[in-house]
């Protein structure tokens, strides 16, 4: 395949993925919007007013970046797991496997589809948050970089999960038992300054803490972590997961007997 044909294949795959999640928007776009609106009402208005300021901002301003990031990463992840696993389950993935589409285009196609949903939901949540508070932007470059890298990282992780999954249960285990706890403990609702030194050390082992705080830095200019190192670490993780996912595809793991 020449580059033009590869571009057509990538465009086809990405547009198919976007059509998939927009066709079932009641399952993919609406629920996170409702969930996040409830978070804004409860933590922002009802409880937040009693908590007071955090990091020099109102509580709702403090939690909004974390909630946006939570929406981005969970939706990027779940879009790719459900889409790729469904393709495996229905065997429609064979349409791609018999075609000359290179593995990296297949991987990119699914990941860009997942990123599109993650970023789309992130935009919806951001728009909703503006009904509850104002949202300054401290550094656009950091905002765009961290949100894009996070969406890519979780789309890749979702792809790897879907490759190994044998049942629908297998694609819900990681989000339920790994992603949700890490996200809730990843500084979405609190600054780790509030924790004791020991628990701060434990919290720093959580990768989501770095994403949330870097994004918060991009919007509010405050962070519990070193932003530069967080971005470098994220780039390394994205490259590593991309190579692993590509290897799994090339090897035909759980795809080709």
């Amino acid at each position, binding site marked *: 395949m020449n580059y033009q044909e590869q571009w*057509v294949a990538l465009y086809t795959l990405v547009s198919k993925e976007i059509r998939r999640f927009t066709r079932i928007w009641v399952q993919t776009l609406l629920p996170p919007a409702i969930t996040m609106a409830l978070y804004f009402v409860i933590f922002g208005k009802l409880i937040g007013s009693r908590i007071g300021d955090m990091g020099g901002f109102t509580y709702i301003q403090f939690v909004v970046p974390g909630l946006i990031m939570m929406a981005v990463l969970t939706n990027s992840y779940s879009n790719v797991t459900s889409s790729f696993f469904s393709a495996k389950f229905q065997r429609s993935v064979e349409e791609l496997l018999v075609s000359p589409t290179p593995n990296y285009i297949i991987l990119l196609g699914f990941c860009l589809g997942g990123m599109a949903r993650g970023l789309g939901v992130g935009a919806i949540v951001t728009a909703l948050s503006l009904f509850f508070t104002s949202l300054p932007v401290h550094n656009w470059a950091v905002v765009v970089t961290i949100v894009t890298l996070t969406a890519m990282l979780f789309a890749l992780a979702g792809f790897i999960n879907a490759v190994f999954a044998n049942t629908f249960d297998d694609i819900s285990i990681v989000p339920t038992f790994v992603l949700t706890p890490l996200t809730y403990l990843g500084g979405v609702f609190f600054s780790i300054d509030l924790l004791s030194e020991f628990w701060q050390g434990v919290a720093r082992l959580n990768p989501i803490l770095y994403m949330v705080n870097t994004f918060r830095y991009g919007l509010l200019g405050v962070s519990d972590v070193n932003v530069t190192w967080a971005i470098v670490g994220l780039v390394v993780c994205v490259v590593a997961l991309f190579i692993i996912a590509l290897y799994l595809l090339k090897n035909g793991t759980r795809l080709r007997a």
Partner: protein
Amino acid sequence: MTAALSIRNLTKTYGDGFQALKGISLEVQPGDFFALLGPNGAGKSTTIGIICSLLRKTSGAVEVFGIDTDTHFSQAKMNIGVVPQEFNFSMFEKVLDIITQQGGYYGIPVKLARERAEKYLRQLGLWDKRNTPARMLSGGMKRRLMIARALVHNPGLLILDEPTAGVDIELRRSMWDFLKQINAAGTTIILTTHYLEEAESLCRNVAIIDHGEIIKNTSIRELLKELNREVFILDCSGELTEAPAVPEFQTRLLDEHSFEVEIEKGQSLNGLFSALSSQGVNIVSMRNKANRLEELFMAMVANNQHRGQQEGE
């Protein structure tokens, strides 16, 4: 001339140690309509899976129009269209989208892919269903959808794995006509089927595979020459109480109006009919008891199994 498909010493051993292919070699010439026959589990689908890269081979080589599928997989795949045994499209997508997307995976721009999709959907009688989600189609329509999808990139080699399984007779005949048309237009076709009259009607050459080995590879015409005996069913107008006795022919009563007769290769039928006529048996119709190829196929597979058992002992 470069073969449309060349397979050399192809082996496949699954993880559990089961040897599905034991070093098969095969050549299919351009423009051929080739039947790959064999009982269930013989290795037909494994062979097809390896050709279109859905399965990994253990050893051997596969070339499509002289292009090695290992070293130039992208170019080789451009030449292959495959219609698998199982439905393998997204049930939630619309018919037209499924075909257009498949074109996209081969680098065909949307406009051209849509034009081709329209052409094949019209030819296969599915154009009215173009905006219908695939799950709403009948079994026969789904099979035709997979044929249209396999053709969207105009492959030189079309591989059909039991394309008419579960399809009614009328539709099967119309699919045969369509396949004959595209074969006449130059597409090489490899067909696996359990309907042996289908292979006899459509194909020029045949390979019979059993237990991972090719036990016969010849033309259908040559194969049928090997048929030494045929069984015919004769229907008569009067009532029969026993099978008519005819010298040199074995007969067996089926019911009060019909009996079957075994006819050896080269045996003249004149004697049969004059003997029946002299006994007052009036024959009104005559037909093969089984498809000719089916009889040969059963005999070959049985022989192969018998040989395998002897070697095992």
